């Protein structure tokens, strides 16, 4: 392979020379130059069709004498540029060495004005009732290149307005600008080719193939990439205007893929989850099933009180009581693959402070879809390995723990977020033991717990997860938790402090990371501030021999992961 600098070529955008990676197209090159090339049909992760014509630009190449190969110079001694007499589309023009383009000449502006006028001829005046308003490319470019009034006096085309393409996607054909992004997505990414255009000219209409519907688990990505409001999410439809939503970076907890997401919230309520671009993990996609994971946040059965034996109390009292129980010994700790790295680290400290008989995790598995859902449905099993909470991969049932409780080896169980009744410990067994439970929602384990710590969901706290690639990714507080509930690391820190008054309870993730980066060799030098937006790859070669259950998925191949790990360890 060539050296990276050899992969860069120089192009001239509006007479400004910049270096761009070779092989990219001129839309991307313009973006790298800090300028905007308006476009509708082009999408970074899809094939180029060049059908919207919004990205028209002028381009030219430096002229050379065909006979001699000598550059042709102008009067100033500069190489002459042979400008093409007509505009070309930027999305289908590859960056060539020395290419000159004009992104803002009079001709280019006229082209854009013309394209906009044609697009708006049949476009309905729907913005007040259109969910896309506020994040609509057509609206944005209409304000830049639209003429403000229409010269088209005839009736606009009428097309179906409320077509259900599938269980989650609604189509308004009048708003469709026929860019075919959705069609290409279904074909190329979701591999479920169900959409197509019928009829011709201005009667062209997007529709599903007869007898089919857009129901694959990635259907809502078409809504995200549709540049206009033609495709809308049935779930989010008419719920809230996008300009009210504050978007917070989060991580999807559906599986160990660790899809990067944005949680759109207004006044403490989450309205929608959309994918956040990360070319190393999920590109610009996410599964539909991950978009509804915010629903439990608002449910009525949230735990909202710290309780000791059914009585409400303060977090300090609860921590004191829990420490009393734990210091009697014979403790088993049940961690969670859904807890953040920080929480798992504190839990490990607690486990060693009480000399836990056993520490276990509960595995959750499902079928991987080869794209963005992996077989391991815990987002952070690798975090538990890194923090030293566990050494082996977890099992779905806690049979050993059940025997230990039965034989009396274990008298106290500390569970961080796992409903033990779901993993092989019956209610009678739990009643036999002292139970300390950290949980978000009411369940049977919470009912029998002696000390109960309500915890926060992933949207209400900050922290990090390690995904299947051993990539450390952070999530941030999107909405405030129920009143009076401290972040989980706070309650765990308080408990740790009660067990071992020497330790100062950490008040935030920065403190915990300071401690982790000095205590865990793989985390050396890592702090929350220096984790990049695309995540930080952690050396997981120490665990390469473990039989991880994930199969191949987008940007992850267990085979290469393992061989790379081997190389590193060699």
């Amino acid at each position, binding site marked *: 392979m060539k050296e990276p600098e050899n992969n860069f070529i120089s192009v001239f955008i509006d007479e400004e020379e910049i270096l761009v990676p070779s092989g990219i197209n001129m839309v991307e090159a313009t973006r790298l130059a800090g300028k905007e090339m308006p476009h509708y049909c082009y999408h970074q992760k899809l094939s180029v069709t060049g059908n919207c014509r919004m990205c028209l630009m002028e381009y030219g190449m430096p002229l050379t004498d065909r006979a001699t190969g000598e550059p042709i110079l102008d009067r100033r001694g500069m190489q002459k540029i042979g400008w093409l007499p007509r505009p070309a589309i930027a999305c289908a023009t590859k960056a060539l060495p020395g290419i000159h383009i004009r992104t803002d000449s009079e001709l280019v502006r006229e082209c854009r004005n013309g394209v906009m006028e044609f697009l708006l001829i049949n476009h*309905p*005046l729907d*913005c*007040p*009732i259109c969910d896309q*308003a506020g994040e609509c490319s057509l609206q944005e470019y209409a304000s830049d290149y639209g003429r403000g009034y229409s010269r088209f006096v005839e*009736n*606009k*085309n*009428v*097309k179906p*307005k*409320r077509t259900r393409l599938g269980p989650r996607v609604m189509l308004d054909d009048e708003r469709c600008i026929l860019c075919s992004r959705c069609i290409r997505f279904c074909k190329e990414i979701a591999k479920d080719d169900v959409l197509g255009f019928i009829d011709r000219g201005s*009667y062209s209409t997007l529709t599903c193939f007869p007898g089919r519907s857009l129901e694959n688990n990635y259907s809502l990505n078409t809504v995200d990439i549709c540049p206009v409001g033609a495709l809308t999410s049935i779930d989010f*439809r*008419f*719920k*809230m*205007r996008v*300009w*009210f939503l504050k978007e917070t970076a989060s991580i999807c907890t559906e599986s160990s893929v660790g899809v990067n997401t944005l949680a759109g919230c207004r006044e403490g309520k989450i309205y929608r989850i959309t994918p956040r671009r990360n070319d190393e993990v999920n590109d610009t996609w996410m599964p539909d099933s991950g978009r509804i994971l915010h629903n439990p946040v608002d449910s009525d059965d949230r735990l909202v009180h710290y309780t000791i034996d059914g009585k409400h109390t303060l977090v300090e009292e609860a921590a004191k009581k829990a420490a009393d129980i734990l210091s009697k010994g014979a403790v088993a700790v049940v961690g969670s693959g859904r807890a953040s790295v920080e929480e798992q680290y504190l839990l490990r400290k607690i486990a060693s402070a009480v000399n836990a008989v056993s520490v276990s995790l509960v595995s959750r598995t499902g079928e991987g879809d080869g794209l963005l859902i992996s077989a391991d449905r815990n987002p952070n099993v690798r975090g538990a390995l890194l923090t030293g909470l566990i050494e082996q991969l977890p099992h779905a049932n806690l049979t050993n723990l059940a025997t230990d409780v039965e034989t009396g080896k274990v008298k106290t169980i500390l569970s961080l977020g796992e409903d033990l009744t779901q993993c092989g410990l019956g209610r009678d067994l739990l009643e036999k033991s002292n139970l300390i439970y950290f949980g978000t929602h009411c369940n049977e384990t919470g009912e029998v717990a002696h000390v109960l710590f309500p915890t926060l969901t992933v949207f209400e706290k900050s922290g990090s997860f390690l995904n299947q690639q051993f990539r450390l990714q952070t999530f941030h507080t999107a909405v405030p938790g129920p009143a009076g509930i401290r972040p989980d690391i706070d309650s765990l820190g308080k408990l740790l402090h009660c067990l071992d008054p020497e330790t100062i309870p950490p008040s935030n993730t920065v403190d915990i990371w300071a401690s982790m980066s000095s205590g865990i060799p793989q985390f050396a030098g890592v702090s929350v501030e220096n984790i990049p937006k695309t995540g930080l790859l952690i050396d997981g070669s120490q665990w390469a021999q473990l039989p991880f259950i994930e199969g191949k998925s987008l940007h992850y191949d267990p085979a290469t992961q393992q061989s790379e790990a081997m190389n590193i360890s060699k």
Partner: protein
Amino acid sequence: MAFKQLARKPLNWAERTYLPQIIMGLKITFWNMLKKKVTLEYPDVRPVIPNGYRGIPTLVKDPKGREKCVSCQLCEFVCPPKAIRIQPGEIPEDSENAHVEKAPKEFDIDMLRCIYCGFCQEVCPEEAIFLQKVFSLSGYSREEMVFPKAKLYELGGTYPDQHYKWEKKRSAAEENQANGHG
């Protein structure tokens, strides 16, 4: 500063009786009694409010009784003191106005917050919210001063529609259908 001191002139006989002054005063009184009234017996009599006055904001319906607001939430966005609260909703598909698709489920204006700036009227793309000439409001509680949708329509009444945008849309659809398209 230079100044000159003047001696007060002594009152003459007529002045000493005070009668001319009393007569002058009564003349003004009687003159005003005969003139047209300039004050109003508020609140029994109300002033005439000029057009363009900015009183309380209300929602209006079109002459055919359709609620004009489509819950686009632009007024909620623009309102400086955040007096407006809207919960958008969908018009059911079997409704007569199904083609409008969207209407507010709830629409509250907190009249204690409103500063009568008129931005909501200015921004509304559907001409659905207008400031009325009502300038005095009172109530016994804060909750009472948050006007719900029904009350806003009651106060707003009907407003003549200049465009019938949605009617035009429907008739265009029908026409195209009749021509075999759509």
